């Protein structure tokens, strides 16, 4: 991957995510503990600490098609371990929010799915509807 870095450049996605997550992205020094502990990193493609790195570099738009925010389930293992006290789950939530406000919606259940949804724990279904559907 090649990135052209110009001073002060932050693309739209970076700015929106930085605003919404209320985290100091620049505190991260890329120790990688978050990615090491994340139980779902195997399915993310791009790892949590790499997500943060792209945001630091102002190239958040490269994350516009990544799977990572939908795979993150908010277990906050990363937040518990981060030596700088960053909450990467909030950054993932900000990414989900920005993309859903851009009308993306990975979970699109229809009434035909009702019977199957009714077999699952209600708390999980409500949470999924909140987190990954528009």
């Amino acid at each position, binding site marked *: 991957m090649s990135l052209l870095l110009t001073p002060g450049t932050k693309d739209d996605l970076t700015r929106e995510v930085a605003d919404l997550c209320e985290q100091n992205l620049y505190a991260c020094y890329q120790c990688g503990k978050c990615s090491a502990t994340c139980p779902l990193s195997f399915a993310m493609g791009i790892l949590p600490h790499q997500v943060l790195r792209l945001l630091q570099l102002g190239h958040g738009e490269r994350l516009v098609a990544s799977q990572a925010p939908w795979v993150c389930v908010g277990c906050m293992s990363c937040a518990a371990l981060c030596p700088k006290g960053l909450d990467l789950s909030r950054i993932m939530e900000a990414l989900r929010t920005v993309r859903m406000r851009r009308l993306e919606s990975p979970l699109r*259940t229809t*009434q035909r*799915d*009702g*019977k199957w*949804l*009714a*077999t699952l724990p*209600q708390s999980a*279904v*409500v949470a999924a*509807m909140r987190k990954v*559907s528009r």
Partner: protein
Amino acid sequence: MNPESTTDLTGTGVSPDSVARIHIMGKRHEVPAGLTILKAMEHAGYRLVRGVGCRGGFCGACATVYRKAGDYRLQVGLACQTSVEDGMYLTQIPFYPAPKPLYDIHELAPSAATLIGFFPEILRCIQCNTCAKVCPQGLEVMRYVAAAQQGDLKRVAELSFDCIACGLCVSRCPAEIAHYHVGLLSRRLHAAHQIPRASHLADRLKEIEVGAFDEDLDALCKADRDTLRSLYTQRVIEPEEEIVGSSAARAGRG
């Protein structure tokens, strides 16, 4: 409208002060104050074939939304039950898409899982209460959706009982729920599966089936008009509640 004008718009001798200046679907009209919205629309020249029904506040066809000048609040009412007011800016919502599911009520269990099975979107409810704010019947719509999530069908039935399925809640819900379908299925499930059966009704049906009333029915069919009339006027409707001294009692059923 010039208050000095002597134009009598109503032709009824009502003074110009009781004129309501309203907008119907963006077009300005002046109609007599005191008319219902429905009558005002017809007075203004609309011939209604949608958005009108029983004219008695029961069928839910004429749901109307309006705003008053200078007020951001959205207000609702049934056109047949609500009087026009000066400054109303209104339109009707005669229909809002909400396809209904098909089911055999006897094959369903009276549970939250059944409701979620047909309407998984009830789990998208964010408790904003917009549905209740927009209900012309003043029902606690959000509460009955909550009760549906909890599988409390009795409570859904109680809270949704006066729903006339006008569809205003459906039109405003951010979670895209079709509340009146949920309410209707809940009431049906509650009635079909949870309300205790009337055993005396079942007994009576059995009696009829075995022919216990065949003779009486036969006699009635063959009776002449005067006999029928006298039987009808002297019938005792509620023997347990019969008032002593009534004509029925005097007719020998005391």
